[in-house]
């Protein structure tokens, strides 16, 4: 497999990694193994959900994002704040203060991702009027969920909303408007996303549904936050910058996107384990009468992203407060819009990274071997071999990157039999005398 196709925004600080199995156990695609005492990410499988960053007790798993100096690369810089950013501040009723502080930080313009989210919601409502689409429609805005579906739930790909995420729409609209306003060439205009999660970094570097992302840089909310805190005090109360309503801002936490789709029969699940459970059930058609499914890899939705500052549930409450002061929705598509600007340029296709072999006969042989190996293991799922479970270890052996000796219980068995052999050998005395044998023979 060509691993150059897999950029990831999750990396490992080898010095900090203890080689424990916290991340190995929690990875939803079984993409991590411990080898030579350090965690290793299987690139094809990683979906950049950030779960390993969250659970690592030694902070060895880190998210990649751009340094603040990324702004210096452009002569005209536009900040694209995620709605989740609005939930990070105490006692805040006015989004204008955040947007004003972003301008004071050195940005020339601000384009709220929440504004683009309202356009995407409008487009979603129109898309869902189509008769020829499979239902329920599954949201594609969370890049980790989209990547999860691509590797684990190919049956559901036809249900996925083939629409650019608000961040992409925001970057394109903002850059086009800036080019018109300033007359600058596109490459001198930078659209810089203020992000709650590392999966968005991957979505920018390796987009799905489009050849190239319109976003030029990704900053972490937690890096921008301390700067904004001090600059917010300088923003005059008269600033009027906010341009998104409750619907757009609501996208920052779980349920917001589904509510904005204006469908009564919807479901919103958050947290990667819950998302997987819902996808399994969707695959088995256990839900009837559902129109729309919103899925977010992080608990609480985007406010739960690992690059945030505030606790997700507190952030959700704060977001709710700030939404109260906004109109319902401020942005709509033109009546005759054919949605083509918002729909994916290319389909997202199944990535069969979980398959044992492309040839079903070989895959079956491997599966039989896998079951046989698994039956010999102890089923403790202890993780000492570096794999998340005995089943995963059996699979690793069949795939050729582990061996049964890596199991400490098997090793103990070997040592026991070796030890008993040694005992037996140590007690060995030259056998019954030849004379007695001879006597018995008589």
């Amino acid at each position, binding site marked *: 497999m060509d691993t150059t196709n897999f950029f990831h925004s999750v990396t490992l600080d080898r010095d900090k990694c203890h080689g424990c199995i916290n991340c190995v156990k929690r990875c939803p695609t079984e993409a991590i193994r411990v080898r030579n005492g350090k965690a290793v990410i299987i690139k094809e499988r990683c979906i950049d959900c950030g779960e390993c960053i969250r659970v690592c007790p030694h902070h060895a798993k880190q998210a990649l994002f751009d340094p603040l100096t990324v702004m210096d690369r452009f002569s005209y810089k536009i900040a694209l704040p995620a709605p989740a950013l609005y939930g990070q501040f105490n006692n805040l009723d006015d989004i204008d203060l955040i947007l004003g502080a972003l301008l004071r930080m050195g940005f020339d313009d601000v384009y709220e991702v929440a504004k683009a989210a309202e356009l995407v919601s409008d487009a979603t409502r129109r898309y869902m009027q189509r008769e020829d689409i499979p239902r329920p429609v599954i949201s594609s805005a969370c890049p980790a969920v989209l990547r999860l579906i691509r590797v*684990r739930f*190919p*049956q559901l790909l036809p249900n996925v909303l083939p629409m650019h995420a608000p961040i992409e729409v925001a970057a394109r609209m903002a850059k086009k408007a800036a080019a018109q306003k300033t007359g600058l060439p596109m490459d001198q205009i930078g659209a810089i996303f203020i992000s709650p999660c590392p999966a968005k970094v991957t979505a920018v570097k390796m987009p799905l549904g489009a050849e190239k992302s319109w976003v030029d840089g990704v900053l972490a909310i937690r890096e921008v936050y301390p700067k904004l805190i001090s600059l917010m005090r300088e923003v005059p109360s008269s600033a009027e910058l906010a341009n998104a309503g409750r619907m757009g801002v609501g996208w920052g936490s779980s349920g917001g996107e589904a509510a904005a789709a204006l469908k009564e029969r919807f479901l919103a699940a958050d947290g990667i384990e819950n998302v997987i459970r819902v996808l*399994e059930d969707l*695959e*088995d*058609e*256990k839900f009837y009468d559902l129109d729309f499914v919103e899925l977010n890899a992080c608990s609480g939705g985007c406010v739960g992203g690992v690059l945030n500052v505030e606790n997700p549930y507190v952030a959700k409450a704060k977001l709710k407060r700030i939404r109260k002061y906004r109109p319902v929705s401020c942005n709509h598509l033109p009546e005759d819009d054919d949605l083509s600007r918002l729909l994916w340029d290319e389909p997202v296709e*199944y990535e*069969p990274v*979980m*398959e*044992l*072999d*492309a040839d*079903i*006969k*070989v*895959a*079956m*042989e491997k*599966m*039989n071997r896998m*079951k046989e190996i698994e039956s010999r293991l102890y089923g403790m799922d202890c993780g000492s071999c570096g794999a998340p479970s005995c089943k995963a270890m059996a*699979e690793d052996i069949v795939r050729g990157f582990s061996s049964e000796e890596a199991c400490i219980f098997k090793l103990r068995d070997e040592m026991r039999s070796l030890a008993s052999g040694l005992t037996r050998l140590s007690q060995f005395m030259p056998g019954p005398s030849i004379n007695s044998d001879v006597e018995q023979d008589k």
Partner: protein
Amino acid sequence: MPEPIKMEYDVPGDDFTRAGAASGDVKSVLKKLGLSSEAVRKVAISMYEGEINMVIHGGGGKIYVEITPEAVRMSLVDHGPGIKDISLAMQEGWSTAPESVRNLGFGAGMGLPNMKKYSDHMEIHSVVGEGTTVDMTVQVI
């Protein structure tokens, strides 16, 4: 030709929360084998419906699965009360599920019809008082 893959599952008779465990496991095996999405879907849905039936009506039992490069064969065996009138049971909407089960969202009378719809071949053998065996096949190629 590779050896067929054989799997066996115990289905508990009284626990709704565990129904679906067997079909879920089979689904993950089929995905690893690289079967088409359509085949995986057909097996998952028909087997899940059968599993639920075994919990509601059959008092639990056993499921035997055999996978070859051509087909997935499932045999669902219970020792429950059996089905009095199979052709009636096959009608959409016909159900003998008790009220308590209907309250949980099951018992819509779609179990057997869905199993027939999603499998390529289905046979039911049932003896009242002895139990029911449902054999289903989903073609892979």
